[in-house]
């Protein structure tokens, strides 16, 4: 009898040696003439336990981690293939407390299935959402998404159903579904994990979107920094074609939907939707002035859905289980779940999918266990490089779009970067401006020039030159950028600067002579 051993092929797990571990297990099994099949699943998201391997036993899937190649022979000695006890035993994977309390809807299959297998995907509930969608009128599908309360998970949090309705209401003709997979925010990796661990969920979500609005062509705009995700997507798209879930006759329902991955080229700004469309068309990623909205005039001038990976990958669950089931999770106007990413200086980092409403404190301490360095947490940045820095006094804020906006912060794509008390917040403020200067598309003046001037002003503050006056100047500059920039890059890059000034002014004042 062949024993199934799961060793993640996820890029993060590979970065910690999962590739060598997988090879080591296969070699050791061959040496011992043990019948073992190694499945390269996605990551469960508990990166503090990666490489986390699992064995399928009559008692379910049992986990061991973090495993290095040096542990492999010992695991065989301990008879791990039959769930034998070992120093790295973690028990049943589902029972690991860090994972057990999570509410995994969008990530329900990530880390569980073989991401290259349509059969495994279908066995775990895949394509039930599409099957239901194909039995519905397009307007009913869109209504289902609206009722679910799903909002754009890329950061803007715009109601997905309204966007889809706008595209549906455009006259028939060539329409597009585009997926923004340009996950450039530091501290975020949920899109990457999903694309590597359950790419068919994204493919199914885009197919449903195409059926709903009458689009026959989809594009996934993937950042160049994600070569592992590119391979996973291309493999999954080919498999979906082979199984006739893509192509001229989707699931035998007589509708066409084709899908192609396009690779970006290292420009953060291309995560902005109009810039992404420019880039897909083969041009410089300079933002477009809106209106017209992409839903009316988007890719190649045609009506276009632009949604983030997690947004689209949530669609199959909603169609499968119904809008109300999804809306039953969450709080206020933030319905459903959010895959939150604990990153940076954190002891137990990784992906936590939970309904909206838990607090930063629960995430940072109950899940995260405090900092990796063991020092106190001084600040967290939520929502990527354009997100505000939040001090410990505000850690009781709930993870909810409106609650975070209420303290002058933003949830963005759900990444939380943790800093210990060695952080220099004036330096982090300088970095925010520097990053904006590096990544500005150059189209509007407040962003292009403002960010460079911002770096210079902070440099003068850091050098102790005319501190009070330069701090005031910096505040005014931030205001100009917020009010005057064309898109979110220049318009939000001041948020980390302003929040650093507001909550950590001593880091600036110390330099004032």
């Amino acid at each position, binding site marked *: 009898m062949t024993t199934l051993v799961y060793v993640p092929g996820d890029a*993060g797990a*590979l*970065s910690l040696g999962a590739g060598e571990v997988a090879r080591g297990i296969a070699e050791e099994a061959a040496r011992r003439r043990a019948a073992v099949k190694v499945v390269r699943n996605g990551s469960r998201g508990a990166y503090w336990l990666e490489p986390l391997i699992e064995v399928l036993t009559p008692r379910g899937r049992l986990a061991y981690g973090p495993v290095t190649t040096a542990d492999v022979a010992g695991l065989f000695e301990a008879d791990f293939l039959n769930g034998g006890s070992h120093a790295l035993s973690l028990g049943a994977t589902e029972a690991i407390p860090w994972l057990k309390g999570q509410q995994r809807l969008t990530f329900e299959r990530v880390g569980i299935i073989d991401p290259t297998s349509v059969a495994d995907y279908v066995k775990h509930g895949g394509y039930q959402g599409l099957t239901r969608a194909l039995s519905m009128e397009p307007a009913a599908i869109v209504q289902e998404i609206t009722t679910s309360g799903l909002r754009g998970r890329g950061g803007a949090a715009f109601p997905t159903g309204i966007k889809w309705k706008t595209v549906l209401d455009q006259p028939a003709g060539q329409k597009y579904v585009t997926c923004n997979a340009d996950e*450039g925010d530091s501290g975020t990796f949920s899109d990457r994990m999903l694309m590597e661990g359950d790419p068919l969920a994204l493919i199914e979500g885009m197919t449903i979107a195409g059926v709903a609005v009458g689009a026959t062509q989809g594009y996934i705009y993937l950042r160049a920094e994600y070569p592992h995700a590119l391979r996973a997507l291309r493999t999954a798209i080919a498999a979906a074609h082979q199984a006739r879930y893509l192509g001229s006759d989707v699931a035998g329902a007589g509708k066409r939907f084709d899908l192609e991955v396009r690779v970006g080229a290292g420009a953060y700004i291309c995560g902005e939707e109009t810039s992404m469309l420019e880039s897909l068309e083969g041009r410089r990623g300079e933002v477009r002035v809106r209106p017209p909205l992409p839903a009316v005039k988007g890719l190649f001038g045609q009506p276009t859905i632009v949604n983030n990976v997690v947004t689209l990958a949530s669609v199959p669950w909603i169609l499968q289980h119904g809008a109300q089931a999804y809306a039953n999770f969450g709080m206020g106007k933030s319905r459903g779940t959010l895959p939150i990413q604990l990153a940076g200086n954190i002891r137990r980092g990784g992906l936590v999918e939970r309904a909206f409403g838990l607090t930063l404190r629960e995430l940072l301490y109950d899940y995260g266990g405090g900092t990796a360095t063991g020092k106190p947490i001084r600040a967290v940045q939520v929502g990527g490089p354009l997100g505000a820095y939040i001090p410990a006094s505000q850690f009781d804020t709930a993870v909810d779009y409106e609650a975070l906006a209420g303290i002058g912060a933003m949830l963005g794509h759900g*990444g939380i970067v943790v800093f210990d008390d060695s952080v220099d917040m004036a330096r*982090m403020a300088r970095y925010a401006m520097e990053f904006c200067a590096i990544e500005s598309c150059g189209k509007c003046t407040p962003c292009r020039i403002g960010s460079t001037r911002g770096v210079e002003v902070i440099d003068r503050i850091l050098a102790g030159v005319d501190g009070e006056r330069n701090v005031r100047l910096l505040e005014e500059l931030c205001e100009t950028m917020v009010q005057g920039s064309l898109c979110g890059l220049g318009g939000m890059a001041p948020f980390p600067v302003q929040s650093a000034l507001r909550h950590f002014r001593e880091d600036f004042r110390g330099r004032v002579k």
Partner: protein
Amino acid sequence: METLPPAESAVVQRIASDLKGRPGPLLEVLHAIQAALGYVPGAAVPIVAEVLNLSRAEVHGVVTFYHYFRRSRPGAHTVSLCQAEACQSMGAAALAAHARRRLGIDFHQTSPDGRFSLEPIYCLGNCACSPAVMIDGRLYGRVTPERFDALVADGAPSP
């Protein structure tokens, strides 16, 4: 402007011709050129412009807009160090200083022996395993200076 050896010129010509029928082909063409030659030579610009019926300025504008496209030949190994916030919180700046010393080059430079190019990168999506490094498309997490030395000593071992 540099001139391309005829073989490379033919590669550029073929890539542009093969892909010109695709919707919005320019980025695809540049990716394919960089995959084939390691960079996008300046002399490739007029060839691409001619085949795709674009102006040289348009092609040059796209090549220079995107950080990923190289305009000079890279070293045998490209080492990218994440410099974004999550990695900063775990000592990315100190690792970068170490890498500069170890390789004897700054960011955007190639070592005189042609072995390494060193590049900053803004997020590799490995933020729970910071600091992160990518070498020739392979990702490494929780990279200490010692581990960095081992990685570059091997050139680029398989993960």
